[in-house]
């Protein structure tokens, strides 16, 4: 249960907590949805879930990005995510981007020109720019979800129309 006690109305703890600043909530989620929609959906979803694992956001871990599921992202692969450096489930491109994601989450100011150059061997400059923006909003959102201790939602929040609950993803 979230650590916030006096909540706004809404079907999920996300709505109930962020709804206390409803104007900010709506606009942030608009930017979030737009920002994650500009890249390869499978790659974005792998990065989102890895961020959620690192910052311990149970809320984020309970959702699946539907464009990624439609593009073929499997449960086997998401389950293998903590073992991405060695698991056969992942391509070299995914490994490099996930490693970069970890750097972004843990200490982005320590990312070197060499680190960026490595990512640019598997992404175009445009893809890299959009990945950075997606990482930024996903990192922000997961940090707040963890800090507020948001529970996994019983339904998909209306502000996250491109997401599914795992049961829906399996159907």
């Amino acid at each position, binding site marked *: 249960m979230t*650590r*916030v*006690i*006096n909540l706004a109305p809404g079907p999920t703890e996300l709505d109930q*907590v*962020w709804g*206390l*600043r409803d*104007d*900010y909530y709506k*606009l*942030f989620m*608009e*930017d979030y949805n*737009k*920002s994650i929609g*500009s890249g390869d959906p499978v790659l974005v979803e792998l990065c989102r879930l890895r961020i959620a694992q690192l*910052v*311990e*956001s149970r809320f984020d871990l309970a959702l699946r990005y539907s464009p990624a599921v439609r593009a073929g992202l499997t449960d086997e692969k998401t389950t293998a995510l903590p073992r991405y450096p060695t698991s056969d489930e992942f391509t070299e491109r995914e490994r490099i981007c996930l490693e970069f994601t970890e750097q*972004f989450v843990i200490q*982005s*100011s320590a*990312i070197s020109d060499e680190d*960026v150059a490595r990512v640019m061997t598997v992404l175009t400059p*445009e893809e890299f*720019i*959009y990945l*950075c*923006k997606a*990482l*930024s909003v996903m*990192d*922000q*959102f997961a*940090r*707040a979800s*963890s*800090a*507020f201790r948001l529970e996994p939602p019983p339904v998909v929040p209306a502000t996250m129309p491109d997401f599914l609950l795992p049961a829906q993803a399996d159907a």
Partner: protein
Amino acid sequence: MQSEDDGSPAAAIAIPIELSRLAAIPIRTKRSFQLDPVLHELIRIYNAKYQDCQYCQNARQAVAVQHGLEEDMVSALGHFETSDLPEQIKAALRITSALASNPALLTDQIWADAGRYYSEQELVDIVLLSMHTTASKTTITLGLDPGKEASSRLFYPTETDCYGTSEDLSEAIAGLESRGIAVRPQAEARI
């Protein structure tokens, strides 16, 4: 790095200006976060230092300075726990610090201690502002930090090229002016 969305790639990766205004950047408005200006500025600068954004950490909100922000408070951010900063500022910075490093470290004790000084709505605002100001990670990672020289100055809420305009902002600026707070850039006021 903020922008009105004109459909360009730069605008697509930028933070919407209205979102920042709702985060009370540059000042509190009726629909924004409602934190004390000094605390707001200390949270913003704490994250700027943590993310190593030269541009962000070398500017000061003129309104916060007029409300009591002093440079020794800014200097203390790097060691706030052992500093002379007031206990209520430390309580808020513990939340900001956890958000920036590992939000799972935000314990019930930290939350409860902060709750001795702040309402629950203010605690929510502290979390959301701490989160909002981590957005400079993108700027740093893309090598787009304009640097210290571009920002070593006081900044004012009337700088429309940075903060745009809105009814809420205009109303808040008028409210500050009516209380004698300077809201317009002075000639070359550098820090």
